[in-house]
């Protein structure tokens, strides 16, 4: 795991959290406009709201980071990183919006953090042949990287 890979994992957490909250803010600003598939013009106009636009762009950035992470790490390694967004939402609410965090929620934060720590301390990828098989059949340099990357007990 290089520093750059940790940045991509952090990107998953940060971009999904910010994207969701900007989207939520934009949709609230639009108010009671009934946005659904049956009301397609309203749905399309929602994109013009700057908060919604920014939210969608951030969610695209999240998806790019997520796909990038899945290309070099196991699904069971990447998923806990996404769970940190629950913690981030709570902490933003606490420090920026001065929301009270109940003891149960603090316990939840602790459990999620512990889970992420458990996974992060282990290997990021299961070395298999599957990683080396690329659609055009060429051997990727990835396999060399994998071979000397951490292999856990």
């Amino acid at each position, binding site marked *: 795991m290089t520093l750059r890979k940790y940045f991509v994992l952090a990107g998953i957490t940060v971009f999904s959290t910010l994207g969701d909250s900007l989207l939520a803010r934009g949709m609230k600003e639009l108010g009671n406009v009934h946005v659904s598939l049956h009301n397609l013009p309203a749905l399309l106009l929602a994109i013009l709201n700057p908060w919604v636009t920014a939210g969608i762009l951030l969610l695209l950035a999240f998806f790019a980071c997520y796909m990038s992470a899945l*290309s070099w790490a196991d*699904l*069971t390694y990447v998923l806990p990183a996404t769970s940190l967004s629950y913690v981030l939402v709570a902490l933003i609410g606490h420090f920026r919006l001065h929301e009270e965090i109940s003891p149960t929620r603090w316990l939840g*934060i602790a*459990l999620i953090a512990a889970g992420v720590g458990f996974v992060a301390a282990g290997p990021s990828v299961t070395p298999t042949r599957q990683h080396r098989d690329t659609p055009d059949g060429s051997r*990727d340099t990835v396999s060399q990287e994998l071979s000397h990357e951490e292999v856990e007990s």
Partner: protein
Amino acid sequence: MNEIYAWAAIGLIILASTTGDVLLSYSMKRVGHVGELWQRRGLLAVVGRMLRTPTFPLGLVAMGVAFYSLLFGLSWGNLSLVVPASASLTFVANAVAARIFLHERVGRRRWIAALLVACGVVLMAV
């Protein structure tokens, strides 16, 4: 009766999002290391290879199904039931599915992590 519908929606969310995650993960493993590919052949090559991997669009469809099941679930059940129940069980379902379908080495470390995260997500919503 609404409760049965809510749990049916929760089941569908778990099934669809797990299917989506497994398909997307499988696709990206076939695409190969995105960062390296980008450096060697450019961004278009990465996107092109992703789109030419048939399981990738299937994964996106599954994610879309999960999203709409969530919307349906929210119209039948409470926010405080549907979101934490589906999110936490999805972590456990993903660990099982990754082991079976992706042959990932899900050791004790990752099982504990999946359970801790699942419990944590439930507590966050209480």
